């Protein structure tokens, strides 16, 4: 079977190339910015133990920039990009909709609403404080959307899933509007959160979301083989012994952990979860066991590059990653749609 061998070789070569690309993206993200640093300084700062400033040769401003600003930012972009990419692949698989993303399932709206509500009620200011509420909001909204579309007959059809997502999003958006119209402080936090930005968060946000993202990624890898069967249609999948309810519950849990955690941390980032699975699919083909991890890697690379680009093109200021991604992602998305043969799931 030469075709199988070719596919496998392409997948393995792709994996090596992506890993190399990821390393380059991480280094670029640490080195480049409103003040670009020489690679030697980056290396010194990275290898120098943070607790012992005296022993560091290249300490001072460069080391400080790297450790206090660039490293947390790069780490956050890395894990949230990974999470959003994997979640995108899962959502598209479960909804059998090539254009589904976290926004469509109400996850962004849920995170925004509880975040804004907690800012209003408890006078919270830092993202590290309201991240738990945003997370809970994403969880509840995701569960409601899946639950509503599954009531009756126990099957969640792709169309009713999307309509339920639109309904929940509209409702939560309206409630968010009430809060931000009443409370200018909440509006002020909300308008910066909603553009989607990996900058301006301290390392505590990274540590808060990491365990959830790891758990979500593990569940995603467990769910991936089942998605191959679900793609054949509900009846065929059931005939092949897939427990549809259990499989969807697993998918929901992992999507909410990944997309909810990432959105709570950095705000809604449009287009990433939408586009990355299509890029990944062009390398791996339709097999979800490969597609899901590939989407994660590509998600991390794309978000890191988008964030770095945003820092470079608007110097000395910067463009938020969410905006850079929309500016890069929209044309790409339109090209994707215009290609004659759109991938149908």
């Amino acid at each position, binding site marked *: 079977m030469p075709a199988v061998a070719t596919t496998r070789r392409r997948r393995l070569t792709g994996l090596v190339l992506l890993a190399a690309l990821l390393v380059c993206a991480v280094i670029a993200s640490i080195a480049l910015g409103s003040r670009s640093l020489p690679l030697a300084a980056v290396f010194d700062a990275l290898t120098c133990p943070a607790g012992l400033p005296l022993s560091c040769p290249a300490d001072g401003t460069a080391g400080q920039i790297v450790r206090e600003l660039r490293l947390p930012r790069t780490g956050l972009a890395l894990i949230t990009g990974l999470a959003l990419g994997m979640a995108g692949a899962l959502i598209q698989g479960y909804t059998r909709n090539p254009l589904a993303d976290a926004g469509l399932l109400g996850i962004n709206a849920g995170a925004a609403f509880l975040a804004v509500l907690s800012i209003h009620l408890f006078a919270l200011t830092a993202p590290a404080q309201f991240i738990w509420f945003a997370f809970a909001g994403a969880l509840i909204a995701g569960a409601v959307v899946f639950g509503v579309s599954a*009531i009756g*007959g126990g099957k969640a059809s792709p169309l*009713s899933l999307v309509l339920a997502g639109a309904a929940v999003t*509209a409702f939560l958006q309206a*409630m968010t509007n009430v809060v931000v119209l009443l409370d*200018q402080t909440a509006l002020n936090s909300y308008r910066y959160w909603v553009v989607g930005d990996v900058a301006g968060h301290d390392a505590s946000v990274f540590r808060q979301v990491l365990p959830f993202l790891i758990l979500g990624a593990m569940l995603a890898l467990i769910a991936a083989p089942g998605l191959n069967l679900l793609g054949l249609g509900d009846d065929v999948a059931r005939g092949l012994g897939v427990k549809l309810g259990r499989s969807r519950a697993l998918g929901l849990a992992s999507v909410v952990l990944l997309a909810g955690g990432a959105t709570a941390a950095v705000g809604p980032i449009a*287009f990433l979860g939408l586009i990355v699975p299509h890029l990944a699919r062009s390398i791996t083909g339709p097999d979800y066991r490969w597609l899901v991890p590939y989407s994660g890697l590509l998600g991390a690379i794309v978000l890191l590059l988008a964030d770095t680009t945003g820092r470079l093109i608007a110097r000395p200021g910067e463009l938020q990653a969410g905006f850079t991604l*929309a500016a890069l992602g929209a044309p790409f998305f339109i090209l994707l749609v*215009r290609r004659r043969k759109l991938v149908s799931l």
Partner: protein
Amino acid sequence: MTVPTPPAVVPDPPARTVRAVRPALRVHGFSTVLRISALLIIAVLIAVLLALFALDIATGDFQIPLGRVLDVLTGGGSRAQRFVIMDSRLPRALTAVVVGAALGLAGAITQSILHNPLASPDILGITTGASCGAVAVMVGTGGTATGVAAALGVPAAALAGGLLTAIVIYLLAWGRTTTGDSGVMGFRLVLIGIGVNAALLSVVSWQLTRATLSDAAHAQLWLTGSLDRSDWSTLVPAALGLAVTLVVAAVSARTLAALRFGTDTTRVLGVRIQTQQAILLAAAVIAAALATAAAGPLGFVGLAAPQIARRLLRTPGEPIIASTLVGAISVVGADLISRTIFPIDVPVGVITAGVGGPFLLYLLVRTNRKATL
């Protein structure tokens, strides 16, 4: 996407509409099957709309008895009552009717010719394009839109943004269709609209981060959808947009019905698809953009009204007249609720989405139970 249908095969109407003989209405080659139940429902919808409209005019801080409202409208009433009704309540209530009707109509047209319940002007990015223009004026003029320039600028900018977005989406969606000709496929148009909408949403968010907090708060109120600033000057353009679209929809009623069966069948039935589709879409865009200019992007009305109407009438496609009525009822009803139930002034957009969202969920649960969606 669609497999070309053999000419002989016309899609069967759903089983429940097939009965032995139905009364039919024929005027100048236009013919339609009369369904008594549908006519009844439309009559009920009109009655509900009139009742809500009258209540909306009568209700407020300065309460006017329902009986007096008719007096004032026909030229009577005290000076105070005349002032309140003619200068404030009537234009506001009429704006609510017109905006809701325009959004419901635009949603029904786009959803039925693009064969997608998600293809409403708000999902396609038309209203977001209008928001981009309006917010640019609100943030760019530096003031909280008190000056004459700003007051004139917001509706004009919203209209320009909506139209520009629609043209861009249409041009981007232009290409080879499944049958090999050049043209616009509904499927591709919806997808590109979703993409453009996401990009425009991020432009709006970005504009808000660049504004002063008070400008941002002002823009946020408009973005929520509000009838607070409506008067005769906001009503006129929206009413014109609605009138144009109603005329276009009435003239193309036969085309609309045919387009529901899909592009290939429509072609077989002898309809020039691209021209007709473009004219209908243009009319829907004008209605949606002018409605947005009047009251802000009232999300959800355009999406939900046709779906609600479809389920009320139990038709396979989105019914035009009923969708228009449901749209008008939802916005007038929302205005009434926002001014009576809550102690604080809640913008009308909060009510339409706050009530409409759960209602669509309820409809989904019900239809899922019957497993007929």
